[in-house]
Each structure stands twice: as structure tokens, then as C-alpha cells.
């Protein structure tokens, strides 16, 4: 456990020593802010129109009461999910590839530390950087709560964040796996991005070809399991999907690290 902490601290420091983490933070926060602003303005405008209609006692042709969850939360979480498709590979690609390229992996693996401790320290550090990103966007939600202080929106907000967090964690586990395979960061990043993209697009198959094939593809897709969280529903099935996805690729990363030794 002590070793995990040592690796974790070193790794976290490495993220913030390079401009990488800052660039990713700024990119992620700006994209999220733009879309949040867009969705939230639309929501406010719709609310005002609704109020005006109500005050005029004229129900004819009026649009229904705007829903914060549907309009703002689902929109912004989907944007986040999409942006993470680009951000996570950049976050994860250096984890092992960089150490292999520089040869420091030889130092690390000849210190009295277990492979699993190295993996855990590195993964948790990347996860922390990612969680920090999410936490910053939480500020937007808090601001919107000041404008629309409706407590019924609190559970769906938390569920949505849980969903984004779980999905990012799953992305990250795959990124770590890809990084353990190569000493080229760019390759690790591209493989991660391409794979996640395929896992996303595979969900569309169900719309083109309904039936067994479509259903299977939908179950595999990383995004299909995400929608329910955005609606405020925590379904154990979807929860299990992300947790298993993460454990699966972390397990494979560990195997790759061990096999690297055998192959020299």
C-alpha cells in the first residue's frame, strides 16, 4: 500500500510538471462551459416563455414545462462523454509507454515493488486527474442550482456524474492497457481513441439492424450503458458493465506487464 502511494504521488506530480494536464483541463472545461451555457440558456429561455404563457392564462399551443434533467443534464453529460473520447487517451497514453521509451521502467521494475502496486499507483493517479476535471465542471451545476434551486434535480445530477465518472474510468482502464503494450505514446493514444470510437459506433448497429446482432452490439457499446445515468437512473446492470470493463482491462494490463518481463 505504501508503494502504491509512492508511485501515485510521483505520477500525479509528473502530470502537473508537464503542460499536458493543464492543456487537457482547459480544453475540457472550455468545451463543457460552452455547451453548458448553450443548454442552460435554452432552458432558461424556455422557462420564461412557459411562465409568460401561464401568466396569460393561455394554455393553447403552449410548450410543456421544461425539464432540467432532459434539457441540460442529458445534453451536457453527452457532450462530456464525447469529449472524454479525446481527452482520456491523451491522459492515459504516457503511463507506461513513456517509462518504456525512457528506460525508467527498468528502474521501477528492479525496485522492491510488485507489478500490481505500480499499476494501481499509475491508474489511480490518472483517475485523480480525470476526477479533478469532472469536479471542476461541477461548479457549473452548482451555479445553475443558484438560478434554479430545485432539489428534485439533485439525484439526477449525482447519477449523471456517477455515469460520466464510471465511463471515464472504463476508458482509462483501456488506455492503461494500450499504454502497457507499446513504447510509443502516440500509438498508445491512437489505439485507445480508435478502440473507444469503435465501441461507441457499434451501438448504432442496433438502429440499422434490429435483432440479435443489434442487441449484442448495443450491449457491447460503451455509450449505450450511459443513457440511463443521464436520466438519473442507477441500474446495476449498467453499473456492472463499467466496473467489469475496468477490471477486465486492468487485469489484462497486469498480465502484459508480467509478460513483458518474460519476453525481455
Amino acid at each position, binding site marked *: 500500500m505504501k508503494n502504491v502511494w509512492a508511485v501515485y504521488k510521483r505520477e500525479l506530480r509528473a502530470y502537473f510538471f508537464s503542460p499536458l494536464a493543464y492543456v487537457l483541463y482547459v480544453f475540457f472545461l472550455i468545451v463543457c462551459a460552452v455547451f453548458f451555457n448553450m443548454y442552460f440558456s435554452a432552458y432558461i429561455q424556455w422557462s420564461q416563455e412557459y411562465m409568460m404563457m401561464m401568466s396569460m392564462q393561455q394554455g393553447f399551443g403552449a410548450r410543456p414545462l421544461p425539464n432540467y434533467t432532459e434539457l441540460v443534464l442529458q445534453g451536457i453529460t453527452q457532450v462530456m462523454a464525447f469529449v472524454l473520447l479525446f481527452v482520456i487517451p491523451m491522459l492515459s497514453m504516457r503511463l507506461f509507454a513513456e517509462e518504456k521509451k525512457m528506460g525508467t521502467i*527498468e528502474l521501477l*521494475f528492479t525496485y522492491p515493488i510488485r507489478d500490481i502496486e505500480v499499476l494501481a499507483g499509475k491508474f489511480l493517479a490518472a483517475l485523480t486527474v480525470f476526477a479533478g476535471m469532472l469536479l471542476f465542471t461541477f461548479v457549473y451545476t452548482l451555479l445553475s442550482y443558484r438560478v434554479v434551486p430545485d432539489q428534485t434535480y439533485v439525484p439526477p445530477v449525482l447519477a449523471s456524474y456517477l455515469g460520466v465518472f464510471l465511463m471515464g474510468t472504463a476508458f482509462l482502464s483501456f488506455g492503461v492497457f494500450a499504454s502497457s503494450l507499446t513504447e510509443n505514446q502516440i500509438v498508445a493514444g491512437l489505439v485507445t481513441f480508435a478502440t473507444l470510437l469503435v465501441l461507441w459506433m457499434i451501438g448504432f448497429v442496433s438502429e440499422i439492424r434490429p435483432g440479435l446482432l443489434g442487441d449484442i452490439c448495443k450491449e457491447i457499446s460503451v455509450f449505450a450503458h450511459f443513457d440511463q445515468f443521464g436520466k438519473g437512473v442507477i441500474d446495476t446492470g449498467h453499473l456492472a458493465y463499467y466496473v467489469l470493463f475496468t477490471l477486465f482491462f486492468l487485469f489484462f494490463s497486469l498480465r502484459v506487464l508480467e509478460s513483458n518481463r518474460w519476453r525481455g
Partner: protein
Amino acid sequence: MIVAENLKKTYNRVTAIEDVSFEVAEGEILGFLGPNGAGKTTTMRILTGYSPPTSGRATVAGYDVMESSLQVRQNIGYLPENTPLYPEMEVINFLGFVSEIKGISPGDRARRIQEAMEETGITDVAQRTIGKLSKGYRQRVGLAQALLGDPKVLILDEPTVGLDPNQIREIRELIKNMLGKRTVILSTHILPEVSMICDRVLIIHEGRIVAADAVGELSRRMAKSREIRLTVKAPADEVQSALKEMQGILKAECLNLSGSDGLCQVSLATDPNQDLRPALASRLVGRGWDLYEIRSMDPTLEDIFIEIVAGEKKEVEA
């Protein structure tokens, strides 16, 4: 302290080392000598538990490198080839990280890091970023991290490669001083380094150990003749005929014929069991020639190395 038995390692069917067996006693300093690609790094990686052997076994401080890898690593200070370090870290932070992983208790850490830094002479760059240090200082940081945790065994892979002559001298000096009571394996392809630092030398060539002996012993054993060089002011052909009459001279060869100064340098291969220098001197002077220089050339490790490697080749061809 270190035992290697029939180590063999193959990468994708290419054999890197084969049948490598040796022992290193406690406190001994073993030089690992061989050209690049001979299998020095492979052997060291096996000993540090970084990559396991294809077959054979090795123990360090009584622990099997495969089965008790963690205990082995606890007892080893390793400096990998080309000194990989984290370039973005400050020296002091890097050493802090290493001491944490090596399990030095938090109370001791500051003191132990200070000791390691003093021993390797890097106290004044403690706050500097590793990536911005000169190669010589980086090498010192590499040595400092190996020393942390006070390991019983030090394994240094080409510690002086890529340094300028001044830095090489400093690092050699440093290594000599920090050895203390430790058991050390040091690899190099620079021959004088071995004779300067090591007790015993192991010559590895194309993945096999071709010679293993104490440094002085090896020189003696390998020398089939003793070389004597002399410079004399006399015509070359007369010198040669004068020398041919002497007993114990196996071969006489003029290196450069009399130039304008009339000097003649001769290289002699003589019987290794007797020193012919006094006899030579009196004979040459007796002929009325001016003797400018006479000296015995000790065989260098370089000569031995070339002889061994050349001998190997002949055997293979035969």
C-alpha cells in the same frame, strides 16, 4: 553472495547468453568485460530479476531471482545501462521517491538521502531538475539511487559510458570509494576500467564466458612471451644481427628504421620466465652504441582480450 548456474536467455530464438555460470564471493568486485552485445546487460538483467532466464538459475544473497524476486530486489542496488532517470523530477524528490519504494522508514529518509548525496557528490544540485543536469551529474544521481537502502549487492551496467574523459575519471574514483564492503558486479567494454577497479574479471564474448580469473593472474597466464622495447642509436640491421645471437629472444622486430637522428626502435618477444633487460643493456652498450631506452611491456587486458577472442574464432573455424 551471487551464484549463477547455466544461465541461458533467448529472445525470439536468438540466443543472447548460454551456459553462463559464475560465483561472486561476499565483498568481491567482479568486472564483466565484453564487447557491446556480448550479453553483459542480459546477464545483469537476470540477476536483478528484471527479465528471467530461459533456463538455469541464479541466486543473490541466498534468494532465488525468480522465486523471491522481491527479496532479491531489496538487496540490490542497480544502475541500468544509460542511466534512465525521470527527467522532470528534482534530484531530491527523485531520491525521496526511491527511498520510499525501497522501504526506508520516514524518520530515516532525510538522513539516508543526505548520506547518499554526499557520497556521490550531488548535494549542491539537490534542488535541480534531473533533465537539466550534465551527463556526469546524472550518472551520480544514478549511483545515489543505487546506494539508497544500503544494498548488499551493487550491479552497475556500463557506469562510465558516454562521459567525457574528465567525468570518467571522477566516476571511476567515486565508484572505487563507494564500494566499501559491498559485493559488486560492474560491466564495461573499457579494459583499463576493469584493471583499475576490479578484483576479478569475467570475459564474456558472444554470450559465453570465455575467461574468468583474477586480474593479475589472467595477465600472467595469458602471456606467452614478454615484450621488451628498446631504443638504440645504431644501424637497424646491425642491431638485429646482434640481438639474434642472444639466448631467450624469440623474435626481434624493428619498429622504425634509423631516421635522420639515427635512432632505431626494436620490439622484442622474450622468454617470459627471465628478465633479459640487464643482459641486453650491457651487450648493446658493449658494442659502443648509445642506449636511449629499455622497458618491459606488461600485457594489457586489451592484449589478453584480443588474444582470447581471436583464439575463439580460430577454434570455431577449425
